Structures are given as C-alpha cells and as structure tokens.
C-alpha cells in the first residue's frame, strides 16, 4: 500500500519508452481524466477556491480616444503631447494614426520599463498584466496617472464584493476615502505581500494609527499603536505577526472597531459563546465552557477553571478586556496593568503577579487572591495560596 505524502509514490511514471504510444495514451488519458474529474470533483472545493482566489478579471471597455476638444485634461501622455503618434501607432499623423504597432503592454513597458519588475512581484494585478489600458488612457485623461476613471470608482468597478461591503458597512474606514484612497495600502501594479498590499498590514496601519489624535467616525480618539507597542513589549500574536487583518476588516464592517467577528463592546457581558466569535476563531472556546479542567488553561486553581469563573456569568460577566490588553502589554499573556474605571478615567490596578506555580491578583476587583496550577508544587506551598472563590 502506498503511504500518503511520501516521495516516489508515482505508481505509473511516464517513461521515454512509453512515448511511442502517445496518441493512444493521450486519447485514453483524456477520456479517463474527464471521467475522473467529473466523478471526483469535490462539491465544496470549487466554491472554496472561488472564495479564496482573486476576483475574476474583467476586461473593461474603456474609451481610449483622446478627450474631445474643449475638455480640460488633468494630464497628457508625453508622446501624445509631443505629437509622436508613431511611437505607438503606424502613422505619425494625429488625424490618421492607424493601428498600434505591437501589443498594448509591450508598447507601454517599452518605455515604462521599471513596471516589468513591479509586475513580476509575487502579488501582481491581473488587470494590469492583462492590459495597461484596463485602467489607463494612453492619450490624456481627466484623472491623474492617466486613469480612465476616479481611482476608487475604477478599482471598485471590478472589485464588486469590496464595493458592496463599502456601501453597506455600518462602520466605515477613513483610509478608503482619504489621500491616495485604495492606493494608501495597495499597489495596483504589483507588491511583495498578498492582496497587492505595499507592506504587511501592521506597517500600513501605523501610517495612520501610529499617530496621536486619530479619531473614529464617532469622534472617539484611537490609540496610538506605535506608542502603545513601544511601551508594552508583550504583543498579541497577530500584532507580533503584523497581521492586524486577523481581527480587523480594513474595508469596513458591521462590528465596532472594524472587528471581523463579534466581540462584546461593553466591559461587562453575560456569557454567550457567539459574542466571543472573534477571540474563539483562534483561541479555544472550551476554556470558557468547562468549569473544571487540568489541561485547557493554566489560569486555574487546581482544577477550578478561573477563566470560566470570571467570564461565564449570566450578569456582569467579565469580558476578555477586563484582564487582557488585546494589542500589547507589559506582562505576559497580555495581562493588563489596570482597568479604566468610571467616567473620569481612573485606572483600577490589577496587580497581577506570576509565580512559577500560578499567580495572584492583588487589591483589585476583589481582595488579593492567588492560584496554583502545578501539580508538582510541594504541599506546603500549595497551602500558602489562598483559593479563589468569586472574583
């Protein structure tokens, strides 16, 4: 029996000796291939790949003629401005330039040579590779960069799902409408990061969210992430991986703070698994489901699951943010120093101390309480730790 995933498992290798019979083999292979393909194509795979893959490229039907006389152009292409029609067309005559002398991209990249390297990057734009005139008018245009349409409208004319999201999102992201708009984050020709991102998400986000005074659509001042991270070395995994998009949807969404999935916006919340969908997309939800455990979490006193104890309440259940700073903290496990309490911004200290066998929180929401999670601790030490009851 062939073992899966082992090299050399090709049971019927094509050898030079079999080439002489290729027409018979070929016909038979096509028939067998078609039958196998039809019979074995997993129903879900096509749909899954469709969701994963890039948007289907559409060749736009742009009017590539020069702007009519009297219409003010924002920019003219050098050769057109100079009347050098024959650089691209058969004739020099502006009134009768004739057909172009090569393929569109060959002509463009003949002068715009640097774009060959840009478009050869790992993430490249299908529309650009297909034809430069999908987006640019080679003569003149009312838009900068010789774009045939306003930049956002141009991008969204093909990227329909983003267009729909932007139109319907309850929470908007200003990055889509300010400065270079889509090009704030994407390079429309080619990039080294997926989705044509010019850098990893974090490096893009801090261009705005690394400043003081940035506000959300409701006027609430947002955290300066550069400052936060400089002062707090323990980073949440996605932050460390520069992957803000693991939790935030950059094009707009329905959850507060552009969160990709649900998370309780309030400090206290009754426990509902679906309210924590954001956290549980990566973290194990059973840490809040099982009252007793010796494997799911180290935040337990013996087998008493303290995550369960804090969060799993009908009223005034503590949300993750009660104890964890989701982006970065001074303490490990994103344990925060304190919790903002009341309208005046007073910070109630948590005073968490980690010990080799567990930890304790002192003079905080509750009196000082410790926990022991290690079975290897001598009994004398275990007795020192006051068991947690109710936080």
């Amino acid at each position: 029996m062939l073992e899966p995933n082992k090299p050399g498992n090709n049971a019927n290798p094509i050898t030079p000796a079999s080439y002489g019979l290729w027409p018979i083999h070929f016909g038979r292979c096509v028939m067998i291939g078609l039958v196998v393909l039809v019979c074995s194509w997993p129903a879900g795979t096509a749909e899954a790949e469709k969701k994963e893959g890039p948007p289907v490229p559409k060749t736009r039907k742009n009017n590539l003629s020069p702007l009519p006389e009297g219409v003010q152009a924002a920019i003219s292409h050098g050769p057109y401005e100079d009347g050098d029609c024959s650089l691209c067309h058969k004739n020099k005559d502006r009134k009768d330039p004739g057909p172009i002398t090569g393929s569109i991209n060959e002509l463009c990249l003949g002068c715009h040579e640097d774009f060959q390297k840009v478009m050869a990057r790992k993430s490249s734009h299908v529309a650009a590779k297909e034809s430069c005139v999908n987006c640019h008018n080679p003569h003149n245009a009312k838009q900068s960069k010789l774009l045939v349409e306003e930049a956002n409208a141009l991008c969204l004319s093909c990227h329909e799902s983003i267009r729909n999201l932007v139109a319907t999102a309850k929470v908007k992201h200003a990055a889509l409408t300010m400065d270079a708009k889509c090009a704030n984050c994407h390079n429309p020709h080619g990039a080294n990061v997926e989705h044509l991102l010019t850098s990893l998400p974090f490096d893009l986000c801090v261009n705005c969210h690394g400043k003081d005074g940035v506000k959300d659509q409701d006027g609430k001042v947002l955290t300066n992430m550069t400052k936060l991270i400089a002062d707090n070395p323990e980073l949440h995994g996605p932050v460390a991986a520069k992957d803000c998009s693991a939790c935030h949807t950059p094009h707009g969404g329905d959850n507060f703070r552009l969160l990709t999935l649900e998370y309780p916006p309030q400090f206290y919340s009754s426990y509902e698994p679906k309210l924590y969908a954001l956290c549980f997309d990566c973290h194990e939800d059973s840490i809040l489901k099982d009252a007793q455990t010796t494997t799911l979490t180290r935040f337990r006193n013996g087998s008493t699951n303290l995550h369960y104890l804090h969060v799993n309440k009908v009223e005034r259940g503590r949300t993750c943010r009660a104890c964890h700073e989701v982006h970065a903290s001074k303490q490990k496990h994103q344990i925060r120093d304190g919790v903002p309490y009341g309208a005046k911004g007073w910070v109630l200290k948590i005073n968490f101390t980690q010990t080799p066998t567990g930890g304790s929180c002192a003079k905080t929401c509750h009196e000082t309480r410790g926990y022991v999670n290690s079975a290897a601790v001598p009994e004398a030490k275990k007795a020192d730790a006051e068991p947690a009851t109710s936080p």
Partner: protein
Amino acid sequence: MRRRIVLVIGCVLWTVVASAFANAKIGDRIENVEMPMIGRGKHHLLGDSNVNVFIFIKPGLEHSRTALLQIVRCEKEMAGKSVHWSAVVSDRIATAEVEREVKETGLAMPVLVDAGDALYAKLGVALHPVVGIADKDHKLVAYQPFSKVNYAEVIRARIRHALGELTEKELEHALNPPEATQGGDASVALRYFKLAEKQFQAGNHEKALENIKKSLDKNAGLADAHVLRGNILAAQGNSSEALKAYTQALALDPANTNALKGKSACQHETR
C-alpha cells in the same frame, strides 16, 4: 524618522513572532505519538521525512478553513519533497464535521484525532490553526500561528528553510517582505530616457534632446542617458558638446562601451 521607528518596532515584532507552543520550545523533541485517524486506523503524528509538518485545526471556524485551503495548496506545491504532513483535531469535534471540512477543502493528509485533548495539553496548544514543523529527528524547528495575510507564503518559506532550501536571510525576506515601492525620480528618469531613445530612433532629435534633459534632471547619475545625449548631439553635428556628454557618462560608468565608442568617434571627428 517615522520609518526608523517602524523599523525598530519591526525588529521587536520579529523577535516575538519566533515563539513556540507553551510546553514545547524550538529545539525540543516532539514525541511521535500514534493517534487514531479520521476514517480508518491509526497514524503517527510525525514521519521519517526530513521535515514533518503538523497542523492543529478546528473545523467550522473561518481561520481554520482559510488556513486549510492554503495548506492544501502548499502540500500540492511541495509534492515530491521530503515532507510528512498531518493534521490534528480535538475529539470534541464531531467526526462528521471534520469529514465535511476535509472534503470541502480537499485536504489529503491524514487527520488525527486527539483523544481527550492529550496532545493539545502535552504541547500546550492554545491556538488554532497553528502549525508546528519538526526536523527528521523530530525536534521542533518552527511554530507558526495563523495569519490572514501571506500565510501560505510564510508556511512554504518555513518548510523550505527547514529543508535547507532557504537561508536565514531568505526566510526573513519571506516573513518580512520589503515595502513595494514604485516610481520615484529614478523611475521617471528611466521613462524619459526610453521616450527620448524612441524619439531619437524616429529622427525627432529636438524632442529627444528635450526628454533626455528631463531624464537627467531627475537622475543625473544615469550613464546611459548621458550616452544618448551624446548620440543626439553628435547626430546634430555638435561634436564638442557630444564629447562632454560621453565624458560624463564614462565618469559614471568607465566600462560603458557605447560611451567609449561615441567618445572615440567624436575625438576622431574633432581632430
């Protein structure tokens, strides 16, 4: 200044990313446990390949689904390499749900069932999806949680690094790709140079000279632009200015054969 701050933060981030499972650090030996397999029989977590990849998944969650689709791609692309693949699911997940996920993602590797979350607890797995990579001696060499961007690229790079196909520097390049810059004066200079070259070929010396000036205004260090300026001036019969242009080109690129030829022709002309 801001770029420097970002770079410093980048370095901090990089050191943090190189973490591991709570109970298994990089370099620790991973026990090659035998586990029940979805569908049939039993299978070992690791194999005797040069690299062993194991992924903890949780069917039904978006990140797990996204990760699996990309892992499937990686597995296909790396077929033929000495890589052993396995996926691990908690026995809390219903078999039917796992089977559906396997079918819908096209996952071909064995899917092992972690009874009582024993492996989760032993390694200290706190996240899903998360990938562990062990070498042929079953020592953990890489730990990679999910990321929404560049995930397949990172997984591929980590495996290729473990196989010895990528250097540290190449791995770092994959984990922290350089900013995708574009344009700038150098690009614009090149563009004007190319336009001037075409205009010169078409016999439009005036326009060609105009555009080569624009090119050199943007990047005076472009030796080929000086050469072209020399060629245009020479074609216009201005040998003394052409000679100066070739000399400038040779100051930038002493081995430039076109500049040497042009200079020699000009010197012959002016004698």
